[in-house]
Each structure stands twice: as structure tokens, then as C-alpha cells.
């Protein structure tokens, strides 16, 4: 059963269309990723799902109701929302606990116990982020909406946070995750919606999105002697060849490596610095959204 249902969602700010006919469903217990470049409508979409904004068009329902009517069941972590400078971590936790009937304490799991007496204004960026996650989970929500979950965290803290998210999901919580870290989406998300210019351009599992990309395998090498590129292009396994300096980059299907090395052997060319890459969600992202994400605020 779908726990989040978004149908034909539209939202504009003045003349600018932020979101244009976006539809998706999230099943109970799923981790659903929302990806896309800056200004693609990701944040507006999740703000509509969290009940912060009213859509101009279409409908959003969470647990079968309007989001504003089920606030207690939705935990939200917003980008760039702060607390009063001098509020201590323990006070923030106590304050937010008082809003919910059955509060849950994630502070220990998120490594906040050593900082309970610290004022918000004195916390590092990473600790602010962890506090923000703890506050999103404090109401024992059935749906957690996490916008830029691990932005500002160092790589270790990021991995720790991912395992927290996996625990949260194991507890049966449905998660809507906005991110621009592909590694994060590949590791955590069951399904991913890629946004571009206010629309969803692709919606699938991370591995299915990767397999959509042409030239899913890539071989890079520096040929030991001059090699006619057209010979490579003529191979049925090859979809494209490009050169970067003296390095050649050949993309193609799964059997690419064998086809290329056979050709090189026949021509008695040695492949130096040979590397084989599998396309990642990163590449799928670039291909589907038509541009690399700039650091999203």
C-alpha cells in the first residue's frame, strides 16, 4: 500500500514554475530517493509532502490524509533551518519531545550524548546536522522526510548516519530522502526519482537506472603505439570512443573488455594503464539530468 501519494503536483513561485506535474508513490517501509540538480524542484516537492507548502495543482496525501493533518506522523529534517543560538542540545530535545505523544530518543545513536549541554550556536556543522536528524526522528514518525541528510558531514559521520537510516527503516519507517550524493542513493534507496526542471525524468531502482545508460562499461588505456580509432569504433561491442590526451576511453556493452583487448593483441599494441569502469548512478544521473549538480544548498 502506498503511504505517500503524489499526483500531478504543480507549484509555481510567481512566474517561475518550480514543480510541474510530478507524480509518484512511496510504499510503506521504502526508502525513496529524490535526486536532481539545484532548482530542479526537489525541495519544493518534499515541502509539499511535509505539509509546509500548499500545492497549486494536484494532490499530495500521506497515510491517506492531507500532510497538514498528520504532522505528528511525519518527521522532517529541513535544509538550513536553525534553532535559537543559545538553546542547548538537551533543551532542543526536551522541547521537541513535548510536541509528540510517544517521543523516541535517537541522541545516543547519533552521538549527541557528549554534547547535551552545548548551545546550538557552538555546535559544529556536523553536530547541528545530527541534532537536526535526531529532532526529525523524535516523534517516532511513520514517515521521515530528510532533505540533504548528510550534507556537511565528514565521510565517517556520513557512513555512521547511513547505518542510522538503515536502523530507522528496519523499525518500519518510510523514508523520503533528498540527496545529491549518488553513493548515498545507491547505498540506501530502494527507488530513486530523478528530477529535472520541475519534472521527474526517471523513476526506478538505482541498478535499473544505471543499466539504462548506453555504454555501461568503460575501458580506458594508453596505447603503446598509434592506433586507428575507427578500428575500435567498428567493433560491434563499442558504442563510443573518445580520447583524453594520449588516453583512449572506449564505452560499450558488457563484453567490451574482451573485444578491445583482442583487437589490440591482433595489432600488437599494448594497453598501458588499463582500467575498466562500470557506470555508476553518478553517470546515470549526469546522463538523465543533463548536468552535474552544483553544490546544492
Amino acid at each position: 500500500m502506498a503511504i505517500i501519494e503524489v499526483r500531478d503536483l504543480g507549484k509555481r513561485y510567481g512566474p517561475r514554475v518550480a514543480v510541474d506535474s510530478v507524480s509518484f508513490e512511496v510504499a510503506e517501509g521504502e526508502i525513496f530517493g529524490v535526486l536532481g540538480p539545484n532548482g530542479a524542484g526537489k525541495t519544493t516537492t518534499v515541502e509539499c509532502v511535509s505539509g509546509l507548502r500548499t500545492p497549486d495543482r494536484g494532490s499530495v496525501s500521506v497515510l491517506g490524509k492531507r500532510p497538514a493533518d498528520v504532522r505528528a506522523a511525519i518527521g522532517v529534517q529541513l535544509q538550513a533551518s536553525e534553532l535559537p543560538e543559545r538553546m542547548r542540545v538537551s533543551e532542543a530535545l526536551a522541547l521537541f519531545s513535548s510536541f509528540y505523544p510517544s517521543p523516541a530518543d535517537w541522541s545516543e545513536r547519533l552521538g549527541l550524548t557528549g554534547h547535551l549541554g552545548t548551545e546550538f550556536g557552538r555546535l559544529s556543522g556536523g553536530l547541528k546536522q545530527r541534532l537536526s536528524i535526531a529532532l526529525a526522528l523524535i516523534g517516532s514518525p511513520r514517515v521521515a522526510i530528510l532533505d540533504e541528510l548528510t550534507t556537511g558531514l565528514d565521510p565517517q559521520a556520513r557512513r555512521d548516519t547511513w547505518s542510522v537510516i538503515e536502523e530507522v527503516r528496519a523499525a518500519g519507517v518510510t523514508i523520503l530522502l533528498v540527496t545529491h550524493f549518488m553513493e548515498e542513493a545507491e547505498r540506501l534507496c530502494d527507488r530513486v526519482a530523478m528530477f529535472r526542471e520541475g519534472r521527474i525524468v526517471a523513476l526506478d531502482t538505482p541498478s535499473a537506472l544505471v543499466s539504462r545508460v548506453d555504454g555501461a562499461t568503460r575501458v580506458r588505456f594508453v596505447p603503446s603505439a598509434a592506433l586507428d580509432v575507427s578500428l575500435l569504433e567498428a567493433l560491434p561491442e563499442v558504442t563510443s570512443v573518445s580520447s583524453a590526451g594520449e588516453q583512449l576511453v572506449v564505452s560499450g556493452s558488457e563484453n567490451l573488455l574482451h573485444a578491445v583487448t583482442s583487437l589490440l593483441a591482433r595489432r600488437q599494441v599494448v594497453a598501458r594503464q588499463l582500467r575498466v569502469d562500470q557506470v555508476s548512478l553518478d553517470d546515470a544521473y549526469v546522463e538523465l539530468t543533463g548536468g552535474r549538480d552544483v553544490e546544492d544548498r
Partner: protein
Amino acid sequence: MLKIVEIEARLFVRDRLNSLFAVLFPSLLLLVLGAIPALRTPDANFGGMRFIDSYVSALVVFTLAFIGLQRVPTVVASYREKGVLRRLSTTPMHPARLLVGQMVVNFAAAILSVLLLILVGYVVFGVDLPHHPLGLACAVVLGGAGTFALGLVIAALAPNARAAGGWATVVFMLLMFFGGVYLPRFMLPSAVQVIGSYSPPGVEALQQAWLGSAPDWRHLAIMGLVGLVAGTVAARTFRWE
């Protein structure tokens, strides 16, 4: 709601400079002025009273204007600017309650400050206890409501916390001037005195309730009206993010 008030109260106390200033400054200033012999001698210039007697209402004006215009608008505008109110919008609790908590705590501080002033004045200088306690209570509550509501209008209309602080300071200075804080009211032209009677927090009603017979109900009504109108404007124009 109790939790909100508790935490707002802690934040208020933690902000030592502002909280001590708001609560203690009027009493301290009374002590300093009262240390000057000429100011605690009855004089025809002061309507046969001592200067310090004629000045107690101005000290109440200071308290209400300081809290209502130096604290309220900046705190509220910074809550909005930092996204605190937006964050609360996603919880089952409406962010308006945070503002209510703010008001409760600031009002309590103002009342504490006035009680301390009454006590210091009475014990140290023999300033009369309020002649009309109920009138004084009304004058403080209505004058405070008017002033705080002006502070909220500024918080609602200012684009950010810095602007709110700037605008509020201008209004603060004006109200202090009309309220006879900078220059005692007997030194001000009569037109300015009249404006002072009707501008929040209503120095005339405060003075009359404390050391006269009773506050003029028209003055109190004006304060209530200012509070009501400004409060409505603030509520109508307030942006949560």
C-alpha cells in the same frame, strides 16, 4: 506549552546582558539618581514632589519600551530568519505558540522589573507604594500590550532581524523621548507632554496610578486600542518564513 515557556525563560535568563538590563536597570538608575541630594528634595519645579518621585513612571516606560522594542522584535525576527518558525511548522505544534511563550516570558520580566522598582523606591527612598494598585496593574498591562504589539508589527514587517533591530531602535528612542525618559516631562513642551500621555506605554497613566489618585480611563483605553490595532496588524502581516 509549559515546556515552551520554561525553555524560553531559560533562554531569556541565559541572555544575561539583556535580561539583567531589563530587570535591574530601572532600579539601579533610581538608586543613582536618588544618591544626588537635589533630586530627593521636594521642589516646586517637580510639582512639589521630589525628582525621583516624578521620574518613577519614566523608569517603567523604559522597562516596557526596552523589552517590547529592543528584545521582542529582534528575537522574533531572528526566529523567522533562522528558520526556527519554519522548522516548528512541520511539528504538530503551531509556531505561534513559540511567540506566545516569548510574550509570556517578556511580560513576566517586565512585571518583575516594575515590582523591583516599587520595592527599591519604597524601601530606599520612601517613594509611596502605588496609590491605585489596580490602576497601575492595568496601566502596565495595557501599556505593555501596546508596546509589545508595536514590537511585533516591526518583527512582522521588517525583512530581516537586522532591519527589525534598526526600525525598533528608532521607535524605542521616540517612545523614550515622549515618555520623559531622556528629559523629565516637566521640561518638555506641553504638546510633547500631551503626545506622551497617548503614546505607548502611556507614562501619564502610569504616573497617575502610582502617585496620583487614579489613571485616566481614556489613556488606558488608548493603550488598549493601540495594542489591539497593532496586534491585529502584526497577526495579519506576519510571515512564518
